[in-house]
């Protein structure tokens, strides 16, 4: 397998794809948002229980490619316990990683997605769950779609 492809589909990604974390609906959720990638059919919905400003609980659900599902799964492990402002900052860092391939040492798990930058067509897969999460935080009722975001 090429170095690029094995970088994209690392063990972390395969692991989260095969054993997704925090997958399913959240009965105690007070924020929900749905995202979709119209060009391929990836779907992701994110359920949050916000306690004041903090994400007390988070789950995701949906179907799609390994990159989109693994990214959403990993995201839920990163966002649990974070405030809305911290979540936004983490998204900006994740976005930087997937578009440039540069990953600061302290976010080692998200760095697994650095390989996405060599497959620009897959950036939308990696960010789908994050867009849904950000929309859930805003309490935005409209579905997040990858078609209106420039990645």
């Amino acid at each position: 397998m090429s170095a690029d492809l094995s970088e994209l589909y690392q063990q972390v990604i395969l692991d989260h794809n095969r054993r997704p974390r925090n997958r399913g609906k959240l009965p105690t959720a007070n924020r929900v948002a749905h995202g979709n990638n119209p060009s391929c059919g990836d779907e992701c919905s994110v359920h949050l229980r916000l306690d004041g400003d903090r994400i007390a609980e988070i789950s995701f659900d949906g179907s799609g490619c390994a990159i989109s599902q693994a990214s959403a799964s990993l995201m839920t492990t990163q966002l649990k316990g974070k405030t809305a402002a911290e979540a936004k900052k983490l998204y900006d860092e994740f976005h930087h990683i997937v578009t440039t391939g540069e990953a600061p040492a302290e976010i080692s798990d998200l760095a697994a997605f650095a390989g996405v930058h060599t497959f620009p067509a897959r950036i939308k897969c990696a960010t789908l769950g994050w867009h849904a999460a950000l929309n859930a935080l805003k309490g935005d009722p409209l579905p997040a779609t990858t078609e209106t975001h420039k990645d």
Partner: protein
Amino acid sequence: MFDLARTRADFPILHQQVNGKPLVYLDNGATSQKPRCVIDALVRYYERDNSNVHRGLHALSMRATDAYEDARARVAKFIHAADPAEIIFTRGTTESINIIAHGWARTHLKAGDVILTTEMEHHSNLVPWQQAARAVGATVRYIPVLGADAEGGLDYATLDTLLTPAVKLLAFTHISNTLGTINDAARLCARARAIGAVTVIDAAQSIGHTRIDVKALGCDFLAFSGHKMCGPTGIGVLYGRRDLLDQLTPDETGGGMVVSVTYEGATWKPSPERHEAGTPNIADAIALGAACDYLDGIGRDAIAAHDHHLAQIAMEKLSVIPGIRIIGPRAGQPRGGLVSFAFAEVHAHDVVTFADEDGLALRGGHHCNQPLMRKLGLTSTTRASFYLYNTAAEIDVLVASLHRIQKFFVG
């Protein structure tokens, strides 16, 4: 059968490496490659004959006009139309269908009328009808597709109940871009004609793959794109019966399609000029004519046989891959030159990305067939689509790649 090696030599783009492997181009349902003679026709036009058409009086203009109108006549011959005036050059299948939806459906249909189509349509032969129906208060109905994998094709038995006097238009695909199903176009047109409904055939996948005879089919309109039949992008055809095209409200108005213009108003020319406002896509129309010549040089019956041969090999070899779900006609049943499939554990996007590493060009997604995908309980499939320059050995590359992908994701 034709000489495959010589045919492949005609296509410059095929002889390259992708990720260090020979390109295996199996995305012909999305677009086809172009032979040297089509590329040359385009270049030659711009090098020697380029001028505006509409019967100018200088040498270049007369050459350009002749070449453009010769291309029109050539396309008419390609689909056995009675008259070159029945050929309108458009940007492609989608524009052609929209022209009918705007210029005929919206002006001739009224509240209570029905537009009948099928459950297997590409969005371009579905959404324009939904929009037209909405505009006039008509309804869209669908001929169902049979089988959990759509393997049964159209449910022709329902025609008896679906073809009511309220049906004013029947629009259907000749060959499904997702399923590979070949619909019985002549039969559908005959049934529609019997109740006085107008017929529209989406020939995007069948043009250039099989012989098409609009007179024998008895259709009122037929739409296709040049780029799926070895022609350039940006050029397509709307075929329509002369009397219908002369009635059709022009979609675009302006120069070239008017008889007389005053400050008070304008009158329109008859077809084809009526439907070709402004400077047309002259060069690409001429190149499309060259594509017609190229394909007839090989023979469309031979091409159809080749498609069928490859589809059968693909069905045979793919259906034994563990965990694969193939949609459309079963092995041994008639099928156009494409196969769509899904794996429960590996999403189409991941399949296509991995296959790209092996030099394969496949397509993954809903293939502009969202309602059909939903009905089949799928969000996406991977599609391999063949054409005259593909080989049986290339199918082996596909199969090996899919085994490798299965192993990586599933173990």
